């Protein structure tokens, strides 16, 4: 039990735990202190000074986010001195900010705009500084647009890139009036170690970092009568989209989302969960094959641990940071790209469509997926496999533009052929989900029995711990897998690239002996992706995860290999996992990159 101390906030006495910051103490007692540089995911910076409060008896004001309460503190959060100073600070930030709000992508969802509105800053007294600076907009990346004229130097992006991701693509350079947030030698985001994870976008309070949006391109495609526009939706979108459209965090809106997509005019609405199940079939088989090559054939070239390859942010990270470990990656494409390759082959054939006329759109919780779709190797269908990637946020914009009253929509089911999924596909959206889904299928494949966890729930790999571990012992395998008798399959799960770094270092140093590791670039996995609704914070991630697992539990089928459409595609098209056809369409390769 923490020691309690007594303080007073705006004249009201309260008892709080020792070491609570003034900001938290105020929030606990129902007093809201505005913030900008503060974010629950990040360390305290105390830079923006918006959260200043007055402590009686002190001449200077104090940053509430950075100051712990002390016994007997008499705190005022809205004194005249605080108000005047706070207004000044907002005015200063606005003077440094390109406040062309009506033409800003973040219009309506900007923390600075909200503050300015609350404090009714109606005049422009200070000199506008933007015209004196030589700002250019960096839009070379297929995922991220960086506009320094809108940057307020809160450094949330810098802390995100360092603390959550350990990438340090964005840092602070220079000092004084020249101080800015930039990349190494001010190169374009596309030319540095940036993984396109989009966490910086998700943490940016203004429009300085936004996704490159493809909304108009998709509207054009829908309007084009010669095109057949199909859409896939990633697992995590269904537990995030509602937040943008009037629901609270953690509400599942799968059926409404499908209904909305139909109303937007997509010709077919299908599910990335289907290819998540397919990924399990391919990746699970790949894992078992690798084990066989190592244990039976004693092949020295086979690499362990095998690492998952679903997260394009993670892929780009390992290409930059651990280029000598690319052989450890599963060769499976991500579910998005498997879907793309199949859309213009399997689906086109089944529906008797000319693949040339198909426009393939995906809705992702992710900005790195935009980069992934743009990779030159992602043309295995003979066309660009995925034409446009939209984030959860972009889809919400389209739904609003179309005038759809989202809350009143009735649930609609996905279209057939690539729209059926299992609970295993759904949990791809949460950290640990790929691992859990893979174990459910691989274990059964090897032993003919259910994975030995209560109700298929492999709880050790669930939750928000940065690195999680699980061991599954194989007993009484089927005859063809007899060599696995007694083998303890050691697995690990890492989410957030700073945790990926920890695991990779333990592999490099030789101290870990995992066989299979799931890596996700974003904290919490895809449900905390860079393309998800803003804000995303620990509490919201937890609620989205609960929704994902509830969705899984509610599914009649919860193992990928049970998915009837998966059974069908192997029967009709792919033959078997790792067949020649699947190698051609569903697998890929990776390339080393610089560490700039």
């Amino acid at each position, binding site marked *: 039990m923490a020691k309690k101390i007594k303080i007073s906030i705006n004249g009201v006495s309260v008892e709080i735990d020792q070491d609570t910051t003034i900001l938290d103490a105020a929030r606990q007692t129902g007093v809201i202190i505005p913030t900008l540089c503060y974010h629950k995911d990040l360390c305290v910076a105390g*830079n923006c000074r918006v959260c*200043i409060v007055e402590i009686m008896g002190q*001449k200077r*004001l104090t940053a509430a986010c950075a100051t712990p309460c002390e016994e007997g503190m008499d705190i005022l959060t809205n004194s005249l001195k605080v108000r*005047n100073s706070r207004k000044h600070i907002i005015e200063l930030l606005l003077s440094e900010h390109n406040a062309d709000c009506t033409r800003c992508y973040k219009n309506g969802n900007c923390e600075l705009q909200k503050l300015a509105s609350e404090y009714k800053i109606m005049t422009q007294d200070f000199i506008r*500084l933007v015209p004196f600076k030589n700002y250019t907009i960096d839009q070379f990346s297929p995922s991220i647009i960086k506009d320094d004229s809108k940057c307020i130097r809160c450094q949330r992006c810098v802390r995100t890139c360092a603390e959550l991701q350990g990438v340090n693509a964005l840092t602070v350079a220079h000092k*004084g*009036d020249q*101080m800015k947030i930039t990349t190494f030698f001010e190169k374009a985001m596309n030319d540095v170690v940036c993984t396109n994870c989009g966490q910086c976008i998700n943490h940016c309070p203004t429009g300085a970092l936004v996704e490159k949006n493809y909304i108009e391109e998709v509207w054009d495609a829908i309007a084009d009568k010669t095109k057949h526009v199909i859409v896939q939706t990633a697992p995590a979108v269904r537990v995030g989209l509602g937040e943008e459209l009037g629901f609270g965090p953690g509400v599942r809106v799968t059926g409404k989302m499908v209904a909305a997509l139909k109303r937007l005019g997509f010709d077919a609405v299908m599910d990335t969960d289907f290819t998540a199940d397919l990924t399990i079939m391919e990746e699970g088989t790949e894992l078992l094959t690798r084990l066989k090559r190592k244990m039976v054939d004693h092949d020295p070239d086979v690499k362990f641990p095998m690492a998952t390859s679903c997260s394009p942010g993670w892929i780009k990270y390992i290409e930059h940071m651990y280029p000598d470990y690319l052989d450890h990656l599963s060769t499976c494409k991500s579910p998005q790209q498997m879907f793309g390759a199949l859309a213009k082959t399997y689906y086109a054939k089944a529906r008797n469509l000319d693949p040339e006329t198909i426009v393939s759109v995906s809705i992702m919780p992710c900005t790195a997926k935009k980069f992934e779709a743009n990779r030159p190797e992602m043309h295995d269908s003979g066309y660009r496999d995925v034409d446009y990637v939209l984030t959860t946020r972009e889809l919400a914009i389209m739904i609003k533009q179309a005038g759809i009253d989202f809350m009143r929509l009735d649930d609609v089911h996905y279209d057939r052929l690539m729209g059926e999924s299992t609970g295993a596909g759904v949990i791809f959206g949460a950290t640990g989900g790929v691992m859990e889904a893979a174990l459910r299928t691989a274990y059964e494949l090897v032993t003919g029995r259910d994975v030995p966890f209560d109700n298929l729930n492999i709880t050790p790999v669930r939750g928000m711990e940065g690195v999680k571990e699980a061991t599954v012992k194989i007993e009484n395998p089927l005859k063809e897998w007899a060599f696995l008798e007694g083998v303890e399959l050691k697995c690990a799960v890492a989410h957030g690239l700073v945790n990926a770094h920890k695991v990779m270092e333990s592999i490099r140093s030789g101290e870990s002996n995992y066989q299979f590791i799931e890596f996700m670039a974003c904290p919490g996995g895809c449900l905390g992706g860079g393309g998800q609704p803003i804000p995303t914070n620990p509490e919201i991630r937890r609620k989205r995860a609960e929704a994902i697992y509830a969705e899984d539990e509610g599914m009649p089928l919860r193992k990928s290999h049970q998915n009837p459409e998966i059974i069908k595609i192997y029967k009709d098209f792919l033959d078997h996992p790792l067949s020649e056809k699947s190698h051609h369409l569903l697998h890929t390769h990776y390339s080393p990159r610089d560490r700039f």
Partner: protein
Amino acid sequence: MTTNYLLKRVDFIFKNENDWEVILSKSINRAPQELINELISSELKGRGGAGFPTGLKWKLSAEAVNAIKYVICNADEGEPGTFKDREILSRVPFKVLTAMAVCGHVIGAKEGYIYLRGEYHFLRPELNKAIVEFEYYCKEIKFDFSIKIFMGSGAYICGEETALFESMEGKRGEPRNKPPFPSTSGYMGKPTVINNVETLAHTFTIFKYGAKRFYDLGVQYSRGSKLFSVSGDTPKPGIYELELGMSLEDFVEEFGDGDTKAVQVGGASGFLVPRKRFHETAIGFQGKLTGISLPTGGSMMLFNSSRSMFNVLDNYLEFFREESCGQCTPCRVGCQQLLKGIKAVKRGEKNAQYLDKLLRLTETMQYTAKCGLGQSVANSFSSIVENFREEMIY
């Protein structure tokens, strides 16, 4: 020196006394608490400008529980018009080294660092020689204390103690949030005493002659003597050790060129005092004497009637705009607004009332900036604008 002594000159710091070995041996054989009491009763306050009681600073670090502690000598003398620390380190380095070692004894630190301003790299060879000799003596008397020099790299803000720690840790010199304070969490997160060069030199005087000799100098709240760097329009620029509490009128009488219209006390982060207020201004830390008292790092810059106060302010603001670390809003943006603002008023693009808006802005900067730099921009700005408003406009 000739002429009448209006000011009480003192000669402690530069007095060449070849007895540091004696002072060191004697002091480290005294109990830490005794030395702390000596400092507390001398009422010595930090000579870097902020004026924190030195004895209390040592006491807090001595009380902090940690196996590793540090003593840091802040020689990042960057305040425009200040050059006293350079003189101390080149003329009486052993006094500073001795004081650092005694501090190490008091708080329980075995390592000391001198953070030397980058521009003073020419001091380094001689200072290094002194350190070698000093450490050799420490070994002889079996006193475990080492001193290293850390070179600054050209950033004024690193004179701020927490920015200095960051810089020593290999990072950008950005001030930290306080608390925690250096006495419990300083360099490398360890309890640290960080003192200005001159402060350390004064402790040597106190340990040698006792607290009373020091306390007897100066006036209430401002005890002892202090070095002043005198520059600008003066026939006798240089460094002078003077008793605290002197009136600015006497000072100008002695150092002015007969046409002094204003004195900037304490450098860019200090105050400008116009002629009409010389008589009511005393130089010390706090408390009223005949008029206002001013804290000072020791820079005294005199301006005669040929100087434009607009140019002076312009120069200060240019300095702050560049030397602000840039992390906190009031300082980063505020400095740019002040500089652009006075220029706009001068050019007639903003009316004279805009100066009042800027004055209110400096008040906000004083209340809200993260560190002393941003907080003190208000000092020179308001004292210049309020006293020389016409020069700002026309």
